[in-house]
């Protein structure tokens, strides 16, 4: 499959994930966890929408830059979710969705690399 089209699908799925996570924050009684979830959801939503735009405009370099940014931030989010300050009933759902998102972009960058797209030159 064409790399840009594949990225477009991933960005759309990411937008859906971020909306789902935004929904879970409505039922969150732990304010620290709620703010953390809202922050990552908004980040994922914005980068997802930007990614859709970049994919539709065929802007390869910006898709790659977006992918790097998402990987970097979502791994930061995952690494501190172990803190008891972020405990909430929806934590397993959040962790699953964010982990899948991380995996998406690692695979996407790998595919770009295999397709000889310069993944570091952005």
């Amino acid at each position, binding site marked *: 499959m064409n790399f840009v089209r594949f990225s477009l699908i991933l960005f759309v799925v990411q937008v859906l994930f971020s909306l789902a996570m935004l929904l879970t924050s409505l039922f969150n009684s732990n304010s*620290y966890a709620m*703010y*953390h979830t809202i*922050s990552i959801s908004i980040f994922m939503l914005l980068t997802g929408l930007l990614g859709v735009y970049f994919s539709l405009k065929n802007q390869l*370099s910006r898709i790659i*830059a977006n992918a*790097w*940014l998402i*990987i*970097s*931030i979502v*791994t*930061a*989010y995952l*690494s*501190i979710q*172990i*803190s*008891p*300050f972020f405990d909430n009933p929806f934590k397993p759902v959040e962790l699953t969705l964010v982990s899948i998102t991380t995996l998406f972009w690692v695979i996407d960058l790998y595919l770009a690399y295999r397709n000889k797209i310069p993944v*570091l*030159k*952005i």
Partner: protein
Amino acid sequence: MSQQKTKVTFDDYSLEEVPKEQRYGLYNLFLTLSAAFGAIAVIFAGGVLGGGLTFSDAILAVMIGNIILTVIGSLTGVIGAYSGLSTYVGWRFPFGRVLGKIFGFALITVTTGIGWFAVESWFFGVVMNEIYPNNPFFSVWVAALWGGVLMIISTYIGYRALSFLSYFILPQHVWLVAVGLLLAVSLHGGWGAVWTAHPSGSMTIAQAITATVGLYIAGSLIAPDITRFAKKARDAAVAWALHMFVFYPLLIIGAVAIVLLAGSVIVTEDMLKLGMGVGVLLIIVLGQWIINTVNLYSGSLSFTNAIPIRRDYSSIIVGIIGTILAAYWGYSAGSSLAPFESFITILGSLLPAAGGSVFAEFFIVKPYLEGIKDPYLRFKLEPGKKYSEVNLVGLLSFSAGAAVGLLLPDLGIAAINALLVAFVVHILLAFLFKKANIKYELGTYEYKGGVVK
């Protein structure tokens, strides 16, 4: 053919101009320049300001310091983008080939490449040992050893590895520090309490500006090591200004807030208390990794400039020396570290004087005294052209600037004084020597194309 290409890529055009097709865009430059802010030292420096200033005074001091650093870094960055040369090869124009080699080796290979690389590797070992105290793999000297090797590997690869580390680590670093700070602030009384908190000690705004500028003046003056990869000179200046106003204030002012509220200088300790153990580990391990890659990268470029071997090889030589030093300090519980730190600090304080001479040569002497208006041609290596071995004006202006910086450390900002004195003296001497028809460029070296020896 492909083998030759690999060689060139790993060498990172250390002794020649970076070709236009191998250059990068604004986003890459912005993140790669920001790699220097991976250092925990930046957050700790904010802690020092928080110990002596109120929050509003600290913001004022950091912003003034930031403006000074933005001007200096943008100007050096632009020189790198126009010339496509590393800082030290560029130094051959104001100082001559021989002096450029000596200054590069003394002011960067010894200080940043070996000295600070060793100190940061040792510190990496100390932190690892604090987190895992009873594991022999994490004893100070062993951790310093494997940490140093890790950093040498990334530096061996060069700019591409630095880009990779920056893309992955920098946004992550900011998220982790921001979340840690916000949590800590909300637990200690919120932002309202930050604005009304009083520091435990006292510090003048001038001292704080000096500290803010001093922390990053060296990084500002060797910006061409990174900005030579810029597609456009404007990108170099914008990336520099952006990275100064996005990461630097966030890390420093954030640390000030923590110190004012919690009284603890060590932000990472606050984050550990909040249960953010893995996040803290990432900040320390990846932060030290990226800052030491930056240190060793500049060290290897200046070493290659002095002794013309491939940059990837020189990163191994310089890195091994630094790693052995770090492991020795770890093994001997930090003995001989303090005098060495003083030595490289004094040596590093001479750097602003060199920066003043470079500015004078590029922005005044070349265009107005030598008539080279096109900025792309001012520091250009042209095959068949002859260059000087020693530039007397460069030597004298550097000496004047260095003397002022060393002898008057308490008069204003010593680094800026040194830079300005060297700048003015360089222009005056070049003008006077030319007017009196005195030859101040001694010896000749003919550049034959390719890498410069």
